[in-house]
């Protein structure tokens, strides 16, 4: 338990660091938000607005006020839009979550069978074709794919390309977002499965007369769960970054679009909140993944990891412990 509390503490530190960084970066560079909000106002009016928004205080004072507000739950008003910043965020968040979730689902549904097929037929035509497709997916810019989807599919299949009219609006954007993810996840499954298939365990199970389907799908695949989870955690950043562009193209009302707009309009409070919320979500999800390792693979439960060493070190050690037959074969 203390292990997770420690992790959480570390996460908070990072979170504070991020928000502080954004706060100062935004304010130290040239660019006056007041001019963006009210470009035609007189100098007096501008000064008034500035005072209202607290922008006439010293930077340090602003920071302290900001921290104070955050702690007491007041995240400020958006400069540009009417309404509290937090409301805007909470409205947009579910859309992006749905988009990311959909993309992840599509990716898993395709990547797992593809990875299995690839690994089982290692070095065959099937394997090379799948790897080739992965390469193409990984090398395509997701906004280009989105544009192609719009021009080729949407018009013919009548799928919506703008805004949100219902769950069907998710189809094209999540498809575009999922491509890169499919490529990465397929390769993760493939590599871990190949390792498992060549391991002592697989030979011993074959020697016990277990049906091959069982060996591959139940035992070996289970060992892929941990690397998959790790990689998914690492890809969250990609998902959100990609969402920004995809949402821009499809005019999809999610966090990505909100972020883009708030940056362009120098809407500091909104931007701060977005960064805070985004980082918080990342950290929470990664923490959840961390905790779930123990469920999937008993060796990685919290009790075993008290040593505090990083999950990657542990995984590497585990991988090294089981001598694969390839290594043993070097003494053929």
């Amino acid at each position, binding site marked *: 338990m203390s292990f997770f509390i420690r992790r959480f503490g570390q996460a908070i530190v990072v979170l504070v660091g991020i928000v502080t960084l954004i706060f100062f970066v935004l304010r130290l*560079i040239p660019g006056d938000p007041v001019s963006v909000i009210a470009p035609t106002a007189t100098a007096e009016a501008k000064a008034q607005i500035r005072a209202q928004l607290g922008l006439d205080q010293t930077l340090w004072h602003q920071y302290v006020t900001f921290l104070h507000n955050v702690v007491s739950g007041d995240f400020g008003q958006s400069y540009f839009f009417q309404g509290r910043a937090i409301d805007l965020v909470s409205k947009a968040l579910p859309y992006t979550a749905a988009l990311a979730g959909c993309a992840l689902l599509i990716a898993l549904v395709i990547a797992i069978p593809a990875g299995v097929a690839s690994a089982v037929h290692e070095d065959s035509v099937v394997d090379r074709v799948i790897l080739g497709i992965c390469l193409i997916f990984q090398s*395509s810019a997701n906004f280009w794919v989105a544009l192609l989807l719009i021009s080729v599919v949407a018009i013919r299949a009548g799928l919506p390309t703008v805004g949100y009219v219902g769950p069907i609006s998710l189809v094209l954007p999540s498809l575009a977002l999922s491509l890169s993810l499919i490529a990465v996840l397929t390769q993760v499954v493939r590599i871990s499965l190949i390792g498992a298939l060549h391991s002592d365990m697989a030979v011993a199970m074959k020697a016990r007369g277990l049906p091959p389907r069982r060996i591959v799908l139940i035992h070996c695949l289970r060992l892929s769960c941990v690397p998959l989870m790790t990689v998914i955690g690492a890809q969250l950043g990609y998902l959100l970054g990609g969402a920004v562009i995809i949402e821009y193209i499809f005019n999809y009302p999610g966090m990505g679009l909100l972020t883009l707009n708030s940056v362009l309009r120098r809407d500091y409070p909104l*931007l701060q909140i977005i960064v805070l919320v985004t980082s918080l979500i990342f950290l929470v999800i990664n923490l959840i993944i961390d905790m779930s390792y123990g469920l999937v693979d008993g060796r990685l439960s919290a009790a075993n990891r008290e040593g505090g060493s990083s999950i990657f070190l542990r995984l590497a050690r585990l991988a090294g412990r089981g001598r694969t037959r390839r290594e043993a074969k070097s003494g053929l």
Partner: protein
Amino acid sequence: MASDLTTADADELAGALRERRPRKIRLRPSLVIGACLVLASLLLAVLGPMIAPDAASRVNFSAILRPPLIGWHVAGTDQLGRDVLMRIATGLRVSFAISLSSVTLALVVGLSVGLISGYFGGIIDLVLMRLTDIQMALPFIVLAVAILSVTQPGYFSLTVVLSLAAWPTYARVVRGIVQVDRNADYVQAALAIGASHTRVIVRYLLRDLFGSMLVLSILDVAAVIIYEATLTFIGMGVPPGTPSLGSIMAEGKNYIATAWWITAMAGLAMLITIAGLNLVAIALRSSLKEANTR
């Protein structure tokens, strides 16, 4: 006395302690294919504008929106009658130039940070790694857009921002390798007979890092090309006026239903380039791993 030994002696001793493995890099078919793709792209980028210097900007209202393979225009023409292939060639030039410079910058910064962090450890390590943590926690596009929105538009700021994408990865990888190597026997021996820290770093550690850094930089060039195109696409990258892959696709976006080739061809060119780079990097990585575990 340790000081009596010359640096040449130190080198020799360290070399003797260190296992010298001959490095034979196997030529794989994927390496060759990838290299060909990249070469094709480079040739287009370099030779294209040399052969037809104004094709990219020559406006021809009598030949607007021509589909590919009609007349001379292999990839068709855009809404102003300009040859799409030549515009792509120019765009590729820009992409290569920007990505190469930003990767170089990222490499220098990341390498230094990683070396210092891994070698000296302690509080420096802690602080620097926290810094990378913070940056890696943010999705790059968001960070890039945020910074670019407030800086002077231009190549310099774009290059600097793009280099932010990669430096944490370099720093972390370098740090990892350095931490392991620092405790290796041959390094300890060299230090024990008086080699200075800088010498150790430069002569021994850098050699081990070379392979991984090469692979990472190639992957990085690919990633930066995509990032640059993305940023330009939403208007935050290369300033308007110079064709860039991203801007071509942005212009083509308006004609996507009818003149699909503008966007499609630009993206295809990018796809070929990136795929080639990725292939080379993957092939190199496998060959290097093989050579090292021989």
